[in-house]
């Protein structure tokens, strides 16, 4: 009977170890869903509860292996981005892929952003490639800084519709 207890304890210990590993992971990614930024989980539950929230989980798990550490809260209403919030949310979540596309001068992520901003994606691709350093290098991957730089470059080169 004593040995059965040992097995149970072993099970629990491994369970706790697992939990701690996930805890670290959550720490690394910086937040639970509650404090999440634009990209996910902005909690806007109304009193009537008639809301569809944005959040991410993977099947049954709340595991987050990459996270979003900054951003504006309350970017969404009923699971849909409020107008004007699509661009910051998009940049926040896609910043790594966006930097890759900018350096390459084209790509799906860049085309998506161009569409959101109402810009011609080809023109935007070449402008972002040309101004890669200016847009990304000094930002330390802060989404707001990336966004401001993109806006500046895009305005200067006048590549987006009115």
């Amino acid at each position: 009977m004593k040995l059965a207890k040992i097995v149970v304890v072993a099970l629990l210990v491994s369970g706790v170890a697992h939990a701690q590993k996930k805890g670290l992971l959550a720490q690394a990614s910086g937040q639970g869903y509650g404090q999440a930024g634009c990209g996910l989980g902005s909690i806007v539950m109304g009193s009537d509860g008639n809301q569809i929230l944005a959040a991410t989980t993977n099947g049954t798990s709340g595991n987050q292996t990459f996270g979003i550490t900054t951003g504006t809260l309350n970017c969404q209403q009923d699971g849909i981005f409020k107008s004007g919030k699509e661009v910051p949310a998009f940049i926040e979540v896609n910043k790594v892929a966006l930097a890759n596309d900018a350096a390459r001068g084209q790509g799906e992520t860049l085309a998506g952003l161009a569409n959101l901003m109402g810009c011609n994606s080809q023109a935007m691709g070449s402008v972002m490639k040309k101004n890669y350093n200016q847009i990304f290098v000094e930002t330390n991957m802060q989404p707001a800084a990336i966004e401001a730089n993109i806006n500046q470059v895009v305005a200067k080169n006048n590549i987006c519709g009115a």
Partner: protein
Amino acid sequence: MLRSLFIILVLFLSHSTYASTGSSSASGQAIMAVQAKKLWQERQWLKLLHFETDFFRVRESQIDSANFFLAPNGKKDPQAELLASVNAFFALRGNDPNDHPQCRFPARYKWVKEKLRDTPIPWLDVKCDRFEAFHKGLQGESVSLVFSSYYLNNPSSSFGHTFVRINKASSKDGQRHELLDYGLNYAAEADTNNAFLYGFKGLFGLFPGQFRSIPYYYKVREYNNAESRDLWEYELKFSPAAVDMLIAHVWELGPTQIDYWYLTENCSYHMLSILEAADANVDILSKLDQYVIPADTVRVLWNNTDLVKSYKYRPSIRRVFFERQKHLTAAETTQLKNLADRFSTSDDLTFTEEFKQASAESQARILDAFIDYIDFRYSAEVQEAGREFQLKMKVLEKRSQIDKDAEQVTIDPPPQERPHLAHLAGRWGVGYLHTTADQDFTLLTHRFALHDRLDPGLGYPSYSQITFFDLGFSYGPSPLDPQEKKLELENFAAFELVSANPWTPWIPERSWRFKLGVERTQNENFLPTHEGIIRLGYGWTWQQGAFDVTTQIVGDVHYAPHLSDNKLYVGAGPLVELYYRFNSAWALQSSAFYRRDSASWDQKDYLRTQVEAQWSFSKKWGVRALYRNERFLEETGLQLFKYY
């Protein structure tokens, strides 16, 4: 002042009385029409309420939130719920029109109106701003079911995952921007990180599940980039009207909770249940088993319905990297390797003369592969300003100076990798076993799911085994009295995972295994006995041509309640395994395992060598042969497997 207020009040009251009588006669008309047509018997009404007959033959709604029902007994009575809904659609407008039942249940409202369109009923449409904003935000034109492939590093994802994507129309430039679509996801709101508690609660429906809308780009980054899982997108034949209905129905489900059952009413089940609610012609759940495995739903959609219009494969970052790397010349590969080495060891990244002298095309190819490599190996690090980020910035800076487009990576996985062509996950087996003690046994096995490495090589990752609830019995002579025949449990795996991704110079993958279960152990020191086992193995797998060789250190914890001493003991030792797959029908695996035990019997160790081969003569049938040598006992066996 008071007087004018009084007049306003009187006016207001009389107005609402008027409205109320007006609408009550209209609601009476509508209710009479509903009753004449007995609309509550319609299949789609039942689907909109998620009425299903459960295992105990009870028919009720699967929705577990009271706020989903307008009638007090709505969860059990679809007629009462319909009449209450129709009545509520004529309710007075409150302060916030968004609280009105029409706005709360737009799919029901749409459906009832459509069903009664021949009856002249003065419907009083309420303007639902918030629902309209939601509807407009999704901008649905068509629907895809998305399958994200198996992820062994997280037990809850090892069966894969499915969710629905609402596809927007092409934008002004005539292009589809899938990243800008919204996904609809149903998932458990897990409140624990303890793996065992998690498993228990998941299996027994103790987590609430909720529907969420989420930008598709978030899913792509999560699966393709952070977890390096492939996505398979199946576009469905869904009319625009049905897409509208789907959006309206998901809106109804937003504030509700449905108990999440890991094996039955799970993410995949409810993706199908909302499709059925949205389109009366969709019939999939009836074609599924009681247990719903994500890959099964994709297979059933593909094989048993004509709903799938086309599919699209979205490769993981890992797969994209290997594809790019394949396109490099030998010299370019060396350059890439140099860069990768310096990336991991040095804090600065300089480009060699050799690199600088290469053509622009060549530099672009190397850097494009390198960028994807960095994103795969350091997926978490590059998100934040740190060493890897700084180094990667240098790579991107260099890339931005090269005026060459990136090569388009298009990958079309061969049929044996497509999840919709996978073999079935359940498996029955009958067989025969002969031992050197000259005893014969009949074998009977059943596996709930999913795949081991000798099964038909169709639709599952070839480097892994994902076994859930595998039971094996033998029937034959009892060890105490050979004249007596007994049925014995030989093996039970609650969960068994093997991940044998081969080591490559690019990605020094480890291989590992895990088993939690019961085995009937043969040992020369005691009679065969049942032992509870936790097994963990860790090592590497190497690819040698068509073979792969796995070497691992395996540690076991055994608990044998029937032994008089050494009930609990541990053991560890090396395992070498050789695996060869000739094609999707033929596979062979042989292994040698030596274990040193902590228990003090005469002989404190265990050695086992075995060879297994399977010929799968169809997708549903296979024959597996086995030879096993445990030093004091040899066994040969043959089993017939039926996949179902």
